[in-house]
């Protein structure tokens, strides 16, 4: 089975569409379809692995969003399904995110390791 690395760069875009992140959603579907998928969050998307994200409270024209995105929950679900989840260490550091703020089970990846690890995958999809 082909090994796929999905690199997620863009964060908090289109989260209304499926009440989640559309790329996290797509990769969750891939996993449910038995694809051999790993996720690497980089750039602003490293924010997805920190605890305490809360998108509730959106109300437009009197319509309250009853089912806001819960990206932290979705990442935890992916981890529970056995999807390896990595974040780029330097991108966390740049944004002042400490390791203890991350969800348990998420692994960090250094830049040099990244250059070597790409060879492990048949497909690299940068979203």
């Amino acid at each position: 089975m082909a090994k796929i690395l999905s690199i997620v760069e863009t964060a908090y875009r289109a989260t209304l569409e499926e009440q989640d992140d559309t790329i996290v959603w797509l990769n969750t579907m891939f996993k449910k379809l038995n694809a051999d998928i790993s996720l690497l969050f980089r750039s602003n998307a490293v924010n997805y692995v920190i605890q305490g994200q809360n998108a509730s409270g959106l109300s437009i024209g009197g319509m309250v969003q009853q089912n806001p995105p819960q990206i932290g929950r979705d990442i935890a679900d992916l981890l529970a399904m056995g999807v390896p989840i990595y974040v780029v260490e330097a991108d966390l550091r740049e944004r002042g995110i400490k390791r203890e703020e991350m969800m348990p089970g998420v692994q960090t990846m250094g830049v040099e390791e990244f250059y070597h690890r790409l060879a492990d995958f048949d497909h690299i999809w940068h979203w």
Partner: protein
Amino acid sequence: MSRYLLIESRDPFDSRDCDWLYETAKGLSKVGNEVTVFFVQNGVLPSRKGSRYENYLHQLSLYNVKLLADSLSLSERAISDRHLVAEVSISNMDQLVDLLMDDQLKPIWH
């Protein structure tokens, strides 16, 4: 050794994240891979001689990264052969497709 094709559609004047692509190209090459960067859309803007990023492209070529730029994107922005940084070769969609049809090559769009 793996072969990588990094397709750069963004430009560093607008997107700081272009640094990531340039560094990834160098890093992948440094660890022994064959790397091509294909500039398209605003990604061709640093290819103009005298651009602030001219030296970045020079650096990439020192790391044996092959640099190609889409002819339509160049002409749309009035970047002709004589305006082009020496390390960048004019390319087109046919060549991009030829690269993509190599099943051992890993394309990454940025």
